[in-house]
Each structure stands twice: as structure tokens, then as C-alpha cells.
């Protein structure tokens, strides 16, 4: 195989850039696309799975297309950091709930962004009032419900992909 124009970039990085947008590709397909052997690609993927560079393989779903309409909320949380442990302990207490989709430590007016998914507004509200707000370290919460998702993971959700090119051109 010839040298790749991007060979200076590591194989791992090149793998990640492809599977970031399409995790369906097989090791065999990746190896062909990258110009590396299957063994090299498989080894790199295993290493990245082991060291949690790759944390899982998900599917990007537009749930609005399915009856099962999930509710997503973004909750701003102010907390009291714990001496010696900062925000990590309280963040962990929060992210371990299965309802919680994502937790980010923020700069600015509040401390944690908590993304919560539920089957109904009532369910999400229940989680906030019963689990999240009463935590000792939690000072306040502000819950915002998501009304519509326009773009997620770099992909616009509702734009139809129409190939507008003429079918054959020189």
C-alpha cells in the first residue's frame, strides 16, 4: 500500500474520524478505506475500546419519527463542591441515574448541565423533585424541556438528503 496523504495523522485518529459519523463499518471495510491491514485496524480499535477512547457504539435516532416520544430536558444545577473532591463526587451521584443522559461541568452562572430523558414531562419532573433537587449538595435546579431537536451529533435531524446533481456530468 502506498503512503497515505494523511499518514502523519495517527491510524487511531483516522479510524475515529470515520466511525464518529458511521459506526456501522466493519473492521474489514475500515482497513480497506484506510489502507491498513485488518490486523492493524482491529488492534487499534481493541486498544481504544480497552482504554475507553471508544466508550460504546450508538445509533443516532430521531425518536420523533417513532410513536415512542421521549422527552428530553436540560437542567441547570447549582451545587456545593465538596472539600477535596470538587464537583466529581456530586457529578457521579447524578450521572449514575439511568435517566441521566449526560452531565457536564460548566463555567459561568451554574455548575452542572444535566441532560435527562424520560417518557413524559411528569416523569422528568418527578426525577428532578424526588431525586435531584433533594440532594444535599444541590443548591438549586432550573429545568428546561427540549421542544425540538434540529441537529444532534453534527447531523441535522430533519433535512432530507436529496442529491440534486444531474445524473451524469463530464
Amino acid at each position: 500500500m502506498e503512503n497515505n496523504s494523511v499518514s502523519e495523522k495517527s491510524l487511531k485518529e483516522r479510524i475515529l474520524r470515520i466511525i464518529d459519523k458511521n459506526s456501522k463499518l466493519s473492521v474489514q471495510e475500515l482497513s480497506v478505506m484506510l489502507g491498513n491491514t485488518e490486523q492493524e485496524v482491529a488492534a487499534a480499535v481493541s486498544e481504544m475500546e480497552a482504554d475507553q477512547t471508544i466508550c460504546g457504539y450508538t445509533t443516532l435516532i430521531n425518536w420523533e419519527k417513532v410513536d415512542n416520544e421521549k422527552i428530553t430536558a436540560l437542567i441547570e444545577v447549582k451545587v456545593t463542591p465538596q472539600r477535596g473532591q470538587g464537583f466529581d463526587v456530586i457529578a457521579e451521584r447524578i450521572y449514575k441515574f439511568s435517566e441521566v443522559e449526560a452531565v457536564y461541568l460548566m463555567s459561568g452562572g451554574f455548575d452542572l448541565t444535566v441532560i435527562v430523558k424520560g417518557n413524559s414531562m411528569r416523569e422528568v419532573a418527578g426525577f428532578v423533585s424526588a431525586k435531584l433537587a433533594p440532594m444535599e449538595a444541590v443548591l438549586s435546579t432550573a429545568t428546561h424541556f427540549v421542544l425540538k431537536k434540529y441537529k444532534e451529533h453534527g447531523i441535522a435531524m430533519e433535512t432530507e438528503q436529496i442529491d440534486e446533481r444531474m445524473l451524469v456530468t463530464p
Partner: protein
Amino acid sequence: MRDPINSTITGIKPSGIRKFFDVVSEMKDAISLGVGEPDFDTPWHIREEGIYSLEKGRGHYTSNAGLIELRHEIAAYMERRFGLGYDAVKEILVTIGGSEAIDLGLRVMLDPGDEVIIPQPSYVSYEPCTIMAGGTPKIVELKAEDDFRLNPKALLDAITPKTKVLVLPFPNNPTGAVMGAEYLEEIAKIVIQKDLFVISDEIYAELTYGQKHASIAQFEGMKERTVVINGFSKAYAMTGWRLGFACGPVNIIKQMTKLHQFAIMCAPTTSQYAAIEALKKGDDDVARMCEAYDARRRFLLHELNRMGLSCFEAKGAFYVFPCIRHLGMTSEEFATDLLKEERVAVVPGTAFGDCGEGFLRISYAYSIEKLKTALQRIERYLNQKGKV
């Protein structure tokens, strides 16, 4: 009534690709791998700059040669990418796509009877533009055994006392061939020795894989006899914006600008503003698209070779050029039959010159998913014909 049409024009064959386009267009469920333009949309920040220019009311003519700010950006680009210094005021012309620059370049250089060496298979316009400019096309065949590079010996054989211009179409559409510096050097020597001029169509310069593009203008003594043609269509996915440029010696660019002034006035203003943004901030977009093309290229080459359609390793543009000679069909028969049986459109090599016979142009300006589906159909077709 007299015939209203010029006889030179009627003598020009219509593009072979057009005929095929008409057939494909009638099939609603066809998957096409026949497109000669990027599947990516123009990066948003570039489009947004075009929109902004419209909001600002920038809908007027620009200077004939193009916005001076754009020409400065083009000069900076040619310098940083190829180490070629061009005067933004006198040596650069902004055109309506690379295709206008090809036409202008030939028209300003050719006197009646001058011969133009055109390597084929190659883009469809060199030959008719030569004829319309009053020149005589001399075709040099690019061969698979040379990896579709221009063979210096074949070039020498084609040169006569009447030869004036060599068209150099690399990276090549339709073969995907590139010519590295080590091969261009030989050609440059011949050009200088025979006192020729070069129109170097480098529209795919940014799309090379495994090696950086080299321009023949980089060789000593060549810049003053070369018109480098490039543009925004392929690198920045801006085909419909119709914007290209020519860089060359003052005397040639001056005359090209004169013709451009009379026929065109100036390239579209909106596109010019968008192009400034592309050159200033588009390097990452080009790298991203190039990486995606490269992955598809490897995939396509691997799959076609696996099916027994031997493909030389194309290292430029976004085409591969598999050979179908062993199947006992002409390119056109194969393409027509494949379209009828499996609804996959590929372009017969003959659309790019008679010597494209026995080959197909397959474009990888498509997503991997689409390529996969098309390849499955091609494989099924080959199996059914008992040709694998």
C-alpha cells in the same frame, strides 16, 4: 433560406456524455456513479459569505479580471501551495469556471492551423475549444501501462513544426491519473526544447492522494510559457458557483482578459466574494473532503479489483477507471447494459476520447453507503453474465 449555422460548429461532435445522460435521465430508480462533481455541499461559511454579500447589495460588476482582493488571495494561494509567484494585478484572471479559462487560453494563443497536443482520455472540452479557436487537435493516447501519464516519447512523436500548445490535464478526469514532479520534468524539457506553450488544467490539484500535486509551471523556464488553470469547483465543492481562474505570463493573461471583457464582463460577483472566504478559511474543509474521498477511493479500488475489473491505482480527482476489455463488450455496450439490467450508471470511457474504449469512468463523489449498494449491483451483474 441559407444555413444559419457556422460550418465549423456543425462539424464538432456533441459530447458523448450528453447522449448517455439522456438515457440515464429516463430511469427514475437508477443509481448514478456518473457525476463529475463533489457530493459535498459548499461549506456553510463559504455559502454564508455569498449570502452576506447579497445582503450588502453587492450585486454589481467587478473589474473585468475579478475583485482585486480575490486575485490577491489567489496569488497568496499559488505561492503557499506551489511556490509560484504571480502578480495579482497583471498575471491572474478570474473566470467562469476553469472551462472558460481553457477556451480563452486556446483562443488567444492559436493562429489558424496551429496544432494543439491533447492527451486523451481527458476532459471533453479541449478538442472542441481547439477547433473553435481555429487550431488543429493532435491526440496523444494516455495508456494504462504508463498509469495514464503522458509518455514523453509519445509527446515527442506527436510534435510537428506546427505544434504550439500542449494541454496538460492532470490530475486527470476521467482516469484519476496524476503526474508527479519526476515525470513532469521530462515533459518540461521537451516543451522548452520545442518552444511550446502549456495549458495546464489543474482543477483537481487539491484532490490527490498520497502525494502533493506538482505543477509544470514550477520548473525552471516553464512559468513564462504556462497558463495554469484552477478553480473552486472541485476543491471547495462549488461547481454551481461557476468560478475558476487562470495564472500566467502578462502577455497571455492580458489578451485573455480582453476576450473575457467582451464575452463575459466579469465572473459572478457573489461567487467572487464567497471565493475570498474559501481561500482564506477553507483549508480545513478541503482536507476533510480529501480524506473522505481517499477512503472511498481505496474502498472502490479494492472492491472493483476483487470483482475482476482491474483498476490501476488512481491517485487524483475522484474517479477510477476500470478496464472491461476482457468482457468482450465495448464501453458503451457495457454501460448501457449495466444501466438496463441493474440500474447503475457509469460513464463509458469513450466519452473522453476514442482511446477510452475498453474502460469505464466510475466516480466516487458518493457516500460509502451509496457506493456499496452500487457495487453490489455491479457484482450481481457480472455474476449473472458469468463474467467473474
